[in-house]
Structure formats: structure tokens, C-alpha cells
């Protein structure tokens, strides 16, 4: 109730010209140094991930038993692990894994969630009631429990991990989209569309949804950090990405054994995980303050 009404308010304030408004005010978004910082950091992390094959000084899987557990040196700026693999290279490739998994999860969650939420909100009635019941079932089970149970069932392959992480995102996007659609649906111009005989599909996808995009973008940004944390928690528990594919969570878990003797094993992947989450949380905050100051998409 609080959520939908807030979104309704939002819908009104960002009526049809959102896209131009967004473009026009991008400069205003960047006028905050914090936003600049977070956008810069995010971009940097994506670049590091994308360019990992170029930047990484060693192949991530290259072992060197003769130089295992080396502390940080000029050769290995973040040290090496138990079998002599370069931590820095693995951290970079870990960024690739974490970010791509998170992006895929968000894409799957967003695409399906927005569709479900939009249809549910627009149609209303029994369909809405049933969809929202199902959503509520999934919302009642904490993300990690659902993900763990699904990974246990499906096995820890990247595809299934993305799937397991997406399910709850779908429900989150569905809820927010539904709320926004309900708000926008009540506006006069939608009634006008109907009066001139536009089809429901056209109204929903060309006139209603584009105006619901604010809270959806905010949610997507906010969830990035969330999903990255979830993925690394799964890996940390041994149920996520499996060795030898590098993943920050697995690396932290592997370093756990040698916490006092070789702290660099878990320090650097942990630090990068922290930085990534910081970047996305700051960005999410900035985007939220900018697009959705009333916090409709807080979930």
C-alpha cells in the first residue's frame, strides 16, 4: 500500500518525457562528486573485468608450485595461492565472473519480472491475484535459502547459479513493476489511449511501461551489489562457482585456512568484493535519489 501509492506519485512526477529528462539531466546526476566517483569506480571495475585477459599478468589457471604462497611482490602484486597461481590475475578474472553473473541475473530477473509484474498490474483481477500469491510465496523464502536449495538441487554450474539467483529477482522486479504500472494505469493519458481505441498490448508496452522505468532502473542498480554478494556467499559456502574457475567467494574461503599465515589470500578478493559492492551501492543510492527520491523501490 505504501509502496504502490509512492510509486503512483512517482509516475505522475515523471510523466511522458522521462527519457529526454534523463538525458538532459545526466549532467546534473554527475554534478554530485559521489555519483561521479561511483560511476567511475563501476566503469573501472567493468573495464578491469572486460580487459582481464589483457591486464592480467598471468593466465588465471597457471600454476607455479615452486612459488606457492608467495606474499605480495613486484612479480605477484597480490601474492600467490597454495599452488602458486597469481592472486591478482585471479581477482581480475573473478571480477569477470562476478560481474557477468550479476548482470545476467539482473537481466533474467528484470526481463521476466517486468513482464510478469506489468501483466499482473495491468490486467488486475484474478490473474493479478494469482500471480501476486505466487510472488509472495517466493518472497517469503530468503534469497539465500532459495538459492542454496536450488543450487543443491540443480548443481553448481554457472547457468544454474544464475537461475537460482534470478528467481527472487523476478519476484522483486515483478512487485515493483506492478506497483508502478498500477500508478501509471490510473493516469488520465492512459484512459485517453483507451478512448482512441488502442490495444491493451500497445498501451501497456508503449505507453505505460516506459513511464514505469524509473523505479525499475533504481531496483536494477540497487540489486547489482546484492546479487554479487549472494553469488560470492554461495561460492564461499562451496556451492557456487567451482574451482579452478576463479570466484571471489571461493578465494576467500580458500584463504580462510591460512588466515594468519597468508592473509593476502582472502584480503585481496575480499577487498575487491567490498569495492564492487561499494561502487554499486553508491551508484544505486545516487540513481535512487535521482529517479526515485521517495524510495518506492526499496525492497
Amino acid at each position: 500500500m505504501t509502496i504502490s501509492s509512492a510509486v503512483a506519485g512517482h509516475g505522475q512526477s515523471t510523466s511522458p518525457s522521462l527519457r529526454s529528462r534523463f538525458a538532459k539531466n545526466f549532467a546534473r546526476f554527475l554534478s554530485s562528486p559521489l555519483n561521479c566517483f561511483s560511476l567511475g569506480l563501476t566503469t573501472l571495475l567493468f573495464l578491469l573485468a572486460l580487459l582481464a585477459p589483457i591486464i592480467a599478468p598471468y593466465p588465471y589457471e597457471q600454476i607455479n608450485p615452486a612459488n606457492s604462497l608467495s606474499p605480495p611482490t613486484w612479480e605477484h602484486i597480490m601474492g600467490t595461492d597454495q599452488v602458486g597461481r597469481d592472486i591478482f590475475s585471479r581477482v581480475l578474472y573473478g571480477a569477470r565472473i562476478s560481474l557477468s553473473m550479476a548482470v545476467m541475473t539482473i537481466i533474467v530477473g528484470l526481463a521476466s519480472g517486468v513482464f510478469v509484474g506489468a501483466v499482473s498490474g495491468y490486467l488486475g483481477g484474478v490473474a493479478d491475484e494469482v500471480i501476486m500469491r505466487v510472488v509472495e510465496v517466493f518472497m517469503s523464502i530468503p534469497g539465500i535459502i532459495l538459492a542454496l536449495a536450488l543450487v543443491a538441487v540443480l548443481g553448481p554450474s554457472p547457468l544454474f547459479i544464475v537461475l537460482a539467483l534470478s528467481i527472487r529477482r523476478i519476484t522483486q522486479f515483478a512487485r515493483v513493476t506492478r506497483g508502478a504500472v498500477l500508478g501509471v494505469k490510473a493516469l488520465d493519458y492512459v484512459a485517453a489511449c483507451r478512448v482512441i481505441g488502442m490495444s491493451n498490448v500497445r498501451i501497456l508496452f508503449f505507453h505505460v511501461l516506459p513511464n514505469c522505468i524509473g523505479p525499475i532502473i533504481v531496483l536494477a542498480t540497487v540489486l547489482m551489489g546484492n546479487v554479487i554478494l549472494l553469488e560470492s556467499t554461495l561460492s564461499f559456502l562451496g556451492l557456487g562457482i567451482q574451482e579452478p574457475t576463479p570466484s571471489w567467494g571461493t578465494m576467500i574461503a580458500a584463504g580462510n585456512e591460512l588466515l594468519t599465515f597468508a592473509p593476502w589470500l582472502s584480503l585481496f578478493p575480499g577487498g575487491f568484493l567490498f569495492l564492487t559492492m561499494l561502487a554499486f551501492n553508491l551508484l544505486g543510492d545516487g540513481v535512487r535519489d535521482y529517479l526515485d527520491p521517495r524510495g518506492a523501490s526499496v525492497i
Partner: protein
Amino acid sequence: MFFKFVIRRVLFSIPTIVGIVTLAFLLGKLIPGDPAVAALGLDLDGASTVSQEELERVRTELGLDRPVIVQYMSWFGDALQGDLGRSSVNRESVTALILRAFPNTMFLLLTTISTAALIGISLGVFSALHRGKSADLVARLVTIVGVSTPPFWLALVLILVFAFNLNLFPMNGSVAEHGWTALVLPTASIALQPAALIARMSRSSMLEVLSQDMIRTAAAKGLGRWTIILRHGLPNALSPVITVIGFQFANLMGGAVAIEVLFGMPGLGSLLINAIFENDLKVIQGVVVIVGITFALTNLAVDLLYSVIDPRIKL
């Protein structure tokens, strides 16, 4: 009136609970590996021989030979009566396992959420009152750092520093053994994130409320600053904060799984992880059911709490 609202809302959560129980059943049907093999408890070094008849016997015993729909009906009926089956690993009743683990987890979650709420709301109100000043900025940075720190990583650092080097708290073990000190580090590891989110919501909600006419009215009555903030501001700012607290309570479970494993706390998280590694289907299902129902009821409680706080909310 209120009673009717409660009844209605409670009835509302029944389909959700039915859904959760069904979901848990479906989960069980998807799980790979032969539950009967797992049930026989293989020696970790694989040095055991299990005959085919043994497997058949156990399959029958577990009801794995019946049609799926019959299995579902009996699962549902048993679950209604609080019977979630027996662990295939050690034959312990799943209900008993969960009852033993549940208080540990709830104790951790409740301590954490109360701590987080206390810190978060105070920080948020503080921030709102100093809006735009450097104190506000510092508070916001603290919250953003808090929200970005991976709990399991923080836990490792806390263990190293506070349990090992400073020897202030136990590294491992439950409340039953060490008393409240056992909760300090686990709570600190996972409280940061919800505290930060609660602070953020409190701040924005408080700012919104403080800009409302009724605050000006209260001031025009000649009330003191803190009376206005605490009696008029805070209660009105609380609704969205409670939403966040409710969500965070469920989200806490995420951090709690890793934290329970790390700190050796015998809660639902440890139970689930063990069950997953041992293919202990019934326990996995049981945990999903219990956790799901708990958080469905948490949502219910949050909704009821709204109506207690806000007389405008009816039905």
C-alpha cells in the same frame, strides 16, 4: 474492527503457506542422486558395500516407490501435523532437528535486527537532523561502507582480531555454551548491512516527515525540539522503516547461513548446509518450509504492526 483485520490478514497468508509447502515438495522431486543411497550413510572413505536389496528396502521405507501425487498428499498431510519426516542421514526427526536449530537462528536474527534497528534508526534520525552538514555526510558514508562489507569476510576479520588476537569473545560455539558473548561477533558481522539500510530509510523518511505541515503545527504549539522529533516525527516516519526492517529480517538469513557455519552456531543455516552436502532431502525441505513460514509470518506481523501504529490502515 482490528480483530477482523487480523483474521482477514491471517487468512490471507494461508495460500502463501500452502505455496511454500508445495514448493518444498517440488524441490525434493528435483534433487539429483538417490536419496536411498544417501539414507544408508556411506562411509566417508567409501569403504562400504550396500546391496541392491538394502536399497530397495530403504526406498520402500522412504515411500519413494509410490506415485508422485500420493507422495505429495502424504507430505502435505504430514507437514500439517508438524511431521516433516526423518533425516535420511541419521534418522532423527526433522521437526526435532529444526526445533533445536530454530531458537539459535531466531536468537541471532532477533538480536541482530534489534541492534540494527536501534543503530539504524538513531543514525538515520541523527543524519536527518543534520541534513547537508558534514555529520550527515559522515553518517551516510558509514552506512554505505556498512552496506558494502561482505558479512562473511567481516566475520573472518572479527574472528582474527577480537577472538584470536584480543581474546575478547569466543570464536566458536553457541549461546548455550558461552552465553551472550557468543552472539557478539556473529551479530556484529551481519548487523552492519541491515543497520545501514535502516539508517538510510530512517533518514529519508524522517526528512520527509520533518518537512510536513504537522511538524510545523507541532512547533507552532510551542513543543520542544525533542518532543516534536520523538512524538510527532519518528512515529510518522516509522512505517517505511518497519517495511525495511521486515525485509531485512528475512534478508538477514542470507548472512546468517555463512555466519552460522563460520562461527559453528547450530542454527538453521548450519543445518541446511550440512543437509545439502549430505543430500539430506527431508532436512532441506524442512528448512525451506520452516524458514518460508517464519518469514511469511514475519510479513504478517509487520502488516499487523502497521495497523497498530497507524490508525488509518484498515483492511
